[in-house]
């Protein structure tokens, strides 16, 4: 460790999990309510954390209010365990909780993620925590929170349907790629983080609880396990996920996974690799054993 960073964070100077207990209690109360009303955005005070707002403070607050000594935590950003932001968040969580950290999605009890859900289906003893920048899909059609809350209260999603319809008229299909508007428990329209379409169906009747936190917008919402999640779609324009054609991962050979696209430095050819790096490493390790 550099001399600077070793001086930076004295664990003893802060409470377990960084936040004071009052802050944790408020997040916990809001989370319990969020699970009881699937897809509804429960307002919460939202604390400032040592990371920037917009950098995962919603997810972090959930993780820090959840974490205990029995947990093992995995942190990913864009599916990647070792991107600088994932490393930074993991380091902070570990510094102020001393809980076990992992890259193996199957070994984790809590998975904090930005933009992805791991490829291996989650189990009932796991909780997925998603960081959310814009929790309300209706912001696309109405910018004022006061009006948006009224629309949710009335289950008035005409504006969104119209938006999708106009999109189809213009493009022949719905142009929304990530963060596809979906309903939970046939009631609330919610923003599935900005997950790519690929991951949205994983929320439908999931085995694991999924908690979503928007720190800057001060909202917590949840998709409980075994809850119906339905992407908005028309009968003649059904919801479809990303299609990578015949492409597969250059490292582990996986197809039928979400892929990152690269341009090869030397050949200029397009290549692909798994977006879920933990999954990819695991497949490569299994291959070596065989």
């Amino acid at each position, binding site marked *: 460790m550099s001399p600077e960073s070793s001086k930076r964070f004295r664990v003893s100077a802060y*409470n*377990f*999990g960084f936040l004071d*207990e*009052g802050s*944790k*209690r*408020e997040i*916990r*109360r*809001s*989370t*319990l*309510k*969020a*699970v*009881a*009303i*699937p897809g*509804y955005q*429960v*307002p919460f005070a939202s604390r400032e954390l040592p990371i920037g707002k917009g950098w995962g403070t919603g997810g972090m607050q959930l993780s820090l*209010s*959840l*974490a*205990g*000594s*029995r947990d093992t935590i995995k942190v990913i950003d864009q599916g990647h365990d070792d991107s600088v932001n994932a490393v930074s968040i993991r380091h902070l969580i570990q510094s102020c909780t001393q809980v076990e950290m992992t890259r193996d999605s199957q070994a984790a009890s809590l998975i904090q993620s930005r933009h992805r859900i791991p490829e291996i289906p989650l189990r*009932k003893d796991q*909780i997925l925590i998603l960081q959310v920048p814009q929790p309300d899909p209706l912001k696309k059609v109405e910018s004022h929170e006061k009006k948006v*809350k*009224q629309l949710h*209260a*009335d289950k008035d999603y005409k504006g969104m349907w119209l938006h999708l319809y106009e999109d189809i008229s213009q493009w022949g299909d719905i142009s929304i790629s990530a963060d596809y508007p979906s309903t939970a*428990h046939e*009631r*609330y329209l919610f923003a599935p983080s900005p997950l790519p379409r690929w991951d949205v169906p994983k929320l439908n*009747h999931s085995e694991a*609880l999924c908690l979503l936190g928007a720190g800057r917008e001060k909202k917590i919402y949840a998709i*409980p*396990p*075994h*809850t*119906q999640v339905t992407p908005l779609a028309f009968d003649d324009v059904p919801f479809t996920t990303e299609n990578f054609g015949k492409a597969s991962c250059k490292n582990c050979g996986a197809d039928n996974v979400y892929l990152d696209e690269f341009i090869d430095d030397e050949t200029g050819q397009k290549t692909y690799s798994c977006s879920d790096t933990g999954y990819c490493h695991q497949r490569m390790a299994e291959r070596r054993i065989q």
Partner: protein
Amino acid sequence: MKGDQAFDLVHDSQLIYREMLEAVSRPGTISNIKTVLTKLPDSPVNPGLIGMALTILDGETSFAVVPEFSKLSSYIQQKTGSRVETLDQADYILMHDLSLVPSFSEVIETIKKGTLIDPHDSATLLIQVKSFSATNGAPYILSGPGIASESQVPIEGLPENWEKTRQRANKEFPLGIDFFFVSQAAEILSIPRTTRIRKA
């Protein structure tokens, strides 16, 4: 119980919260917070109920105790800083002995159900029951979010037709009330507003 570890507001709360979260995520699942049983020797009622209260109540919340029991109210006030409120305004309703409640349905009718704008502004009930024992409890069949198809739970110590009273309170989703039950053995079980219940 002298010599036992005292209730740790940081770590015991965390454990209880996780059990409560598990319970509300999977209605009908029995989790337990038995570790608190020996940690709250001065508790005026079953430590399980107190453990949940200490985990979620503080000065930013209000509560009501039904039936009135001043020793319990002042204990909660003192330990958490939470404010006593009237039944129709309280955020959390603590029911420590259902056998002493003259009209369960009146309580349920009175408490906050939230509004369409703020459905979360509703009361949560923390209720002491006898047990979740299959031999003595009345079996209920649950379905809804958090439950794969159906789950069956026996609950001992609830008033006759309580589920119908609850159903009336929850008829207008997303308005409604959420229940956390705790047994004398400090097991917990939750039934949020989305759960459908019928008698087995």
